[in-house]
């Protein structure tokens, strides 16, 4: 087990380096840099800008150095735990990320739990009762969930909440509790804000999760080992959970890795609509103004989350599937 995890961690280190390099290259793709964006911003506001000042700006931030050199400097910082300095916010990136990361993990973690807790039972039900009324209802809801864009769902939710209940959705905390010490009031206030992003974020992912669970399980249900278990006289639900459902979970578990970062990036628009203090909007700002260090910093965090997710799924698979265990030994 320990050897298996160590091997995985070594592979992860390589992957991490590759991910940062590719992320850096992609951020370099659009023409111009932070300085040109700044110039166009200022001139759009009607002011004149001194070309010498632009040059000074470039020099100050090493924007003229060759690509590989800039990457080396930046990656060296990342390895030391320093994500650089955000030009747009005039703040260290570490500080920006640190302020948003707990919120992000809270919202996305709960969304993930919510998704799995609701979608997997529904998926199991609609596979076992294939073509029943319940299966059709679940499928229809699933397709609607896939088809409706998340931001639209968020807007609808806000409108319904406001017009019917007079509640203004948005943010994670009311004004009065910001910066306040933890109390029951603060906790219930947080819960009152949390449900909306969890529901919106969960809806889209949940729909596909239902479909995947259903399809995986349908593949397993007619396998001979299920017939064997039935021939033993196991009660139907117990045999379903012990045998085919366990096998059908393997592909889902393997997807945990890329689910974590995709939740963050797909939730960006929703987070903006709902005014959420999470990493998504931060990434968007960084990319819009070509603030390399900010965008890069958020991407590094997402890369780390991906790797942690992959490690989790590897460990769970190790436990779930003895074939992995035996071949790793």
């Amino acid at each position, binding site marked *: 087990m320990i050897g298996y995890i160590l091997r995985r961690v070594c592979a992860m280190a390589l992957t991490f380096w590759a991910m940062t390099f590719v992320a850096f290259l992609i951020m370099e793709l659009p023409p111009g840099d932070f300085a040109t964006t700044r110039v166009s911003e200022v001139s759009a506001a009607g002011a004149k800008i001194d070309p010498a000042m632009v040059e000074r700006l470039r020099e100050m931030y090493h924007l003229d150095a060759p690509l590989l050199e800039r990457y080396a400097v930046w990656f060296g910082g990342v390895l030391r735990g320093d994500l650089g300095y955000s030009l747009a916010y005039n703040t260290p990136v570490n500080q920006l990320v640190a302020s948003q990361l707990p919120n992000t993990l809270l919202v996305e973690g709960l969304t993930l739990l919510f998704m799995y807790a609701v979608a997997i039972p529904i998926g199991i039900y609609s596979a076992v009762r294939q073509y029943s009324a319940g299966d059709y209802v679940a499928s229809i809801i699933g397709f609607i969930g896939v088809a409706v864009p998340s931001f639209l769902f968020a807007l609808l939710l806000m409108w319904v909440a406001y017009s019917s209940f007079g509640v203004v959705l948005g943010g994670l905390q009311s004004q009065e509790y910001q910066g306040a010490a933890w109390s029951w009031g603060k906790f219930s206030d947080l819960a009152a804000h949390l449900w909306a992003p969890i529901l919106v974020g969960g809806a889209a992912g949940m729909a596909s999760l239902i479909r995947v669970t259903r399809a995986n399980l349908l593949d397993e249900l007619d396998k001979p080992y299920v017939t064997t278990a039935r*021939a033993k006289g*196991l009660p139907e639900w117990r045999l379903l959970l012990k045998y085919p459902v366990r096998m059908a979970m393997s592909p889902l578990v393997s997807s945990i890795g890329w689910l974590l970062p995709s939740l963050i990036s797909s939730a960006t628009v929703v987070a903006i609509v709902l005014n959420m203090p999470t990493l998504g909007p931060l990434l968007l700002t960084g990319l819009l103004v070509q603030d390399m260090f900010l965008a890069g910093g958020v991407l590094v965090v997402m890369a780390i989350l991906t790797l942690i997710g992959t490690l989790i799924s590897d460990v769970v698979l190790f436990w779930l599937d*003895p*074939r992995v265990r*035996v071949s790793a030994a």
Partner: protein
Amino acid sequence: MKRLLLSVRNLKTHFPLAKTIVKAVDGISFDLFEGETLCVVGESGSGKSAAARSILQILDRPGKIVDGEILLHRYREDDTTPSAIIDIAKLGRSSRAMQMVRRQDISMIFQEPMSSLSLAHSCGDQIVEAILLRHPRMAKRDAWQRAVELLRQMQLPDPALTASQYPFQLSGGMRQRAMIAMALASEPRILIADEPTTALDVTTQAEILALLERLRSSLGLGVIFITHDVGVVANIADRVAVMQLGKVVETGDLRSIFDHPQHPYTRMLLASAQRLEKPSPLRATVVPVESTHANVRPILKVRDLGKTFVLRRGLLGNGLKELRAVDGVSFDVMPRENVGIVGESGSGKSTMARCIVGLHNASAGSMLYRDASDGEVELAGRVRKGNDPLLREVRMIFQDPFSALNPRMTVGQIIGEPIRLAKTARGRELKERVAELLSLVGLEPRMMERYPHAFSGGQRQRIVIARAIATSPRLIVADEATSALDVSLRAQMLDLMLELQNRLNLSYVFITHDISNIRYFCDRVVVMHQGKVVETGTVDAVLNAPSHDYTKRLIASVPRPDPSLQTPQ
């Protein structure tokens, strides 16, 4: 007086499909008594498996019992009258009562133990589960002890180890033993065995059959044994029920069925199996090989052929392992001779066949082929492509006619493809050639417009053969050409191949695991075991007086389709 355990009356099991209803079981009746083995024998599609599954109500969707009775007789201790009679056909398939029948009265073992056991649970875990369903109050530790004890009774060498292992870590025979242990864990009165030895090697089959026989007599089990193999029936049955198209056409004692078969289908089934017990009548027309040995040179000379596979593992290719699939194999094939290569799975026979036709590159040794112009060609290391005459002269017949034909091509395109590639005929000429080939293999020329799915297994194998002979080959390698076919079709297919041999001057390298095919079809035989040749000689010499221990064991393991020929177990 043996007690009646199960009485099936006028059972009908149907599979309603979109357009039709498949009447898999169409009104069958039979009885099963304590301590006897009832063999249900039939070819594919006869409904024998659906009948077995109906008894436990474990039919695949959308199968359903629509009529009839399955009367299970329960007895208390040694009473002669049943304490209860339960009609299984009336129970709901997920009902509590049905679960109780499965937990204590009837168990089942299946054909493929690899897929019939869960790969995510250890063997011990799966056996313990059955024990605890029977004895809900037993402590888990005691149940584990009992599971190990059961595995010991299955004659596994290290039962405690096997209990802790997963099915994919065991050999096929060990898996089937674990399966039987699991079935018997519930202390049933009735054991249903659905083709339990079909997926096993013949020597393993003999061991499993002997084990089942021993368990039947020591436990007084009633066994319903489903099989397509007439030899197995002759070996183990007390009574026989012959099924055809969902009906039992004949039932009776073993001897009466074999000695005085009444129904034409029974006669046909027995005759097909027994026909393979002696050389084909068509073989008499082939010139005896010995008489020509002096002045005829072999068409293929295989010398010290080796094929090694490299198994890689790990990120950096460390833990390098080699598998010697074929190891120093030598034999000759004379013109118009049929050389049989016989061996069990893993013996390297198929790998060797693939080396000859160029699907694998040999790693060592040589294969000298004498071509049409009497020149010697080294096959080893030669890449066959483009218009290489070898591609036309050395051809292959494959095992599974369902996967060997491209479903998106018509039969005409399939058979015509090698001719087009060889550029020997085009257009109308090609079409005429394909028509000629189809009639050669006993199909009608107008069938060339159809797609493979419109044909039965036997017809598809004829198409495969037509494709093999399309380019006027001289040497044909047939890899298990009859194993996917029903017994009644095997002799037909072999006769067709012999007829073609007489007409077209072919030589065959015939790969098989089935001794009866060798006896029927071949002149000489090469016995392979774990990549090596253990014995070669004429078919008569090797089959009647084997000299090597492995050959002796192999031949003794084959169940003969004649009850009087059975060696006592």
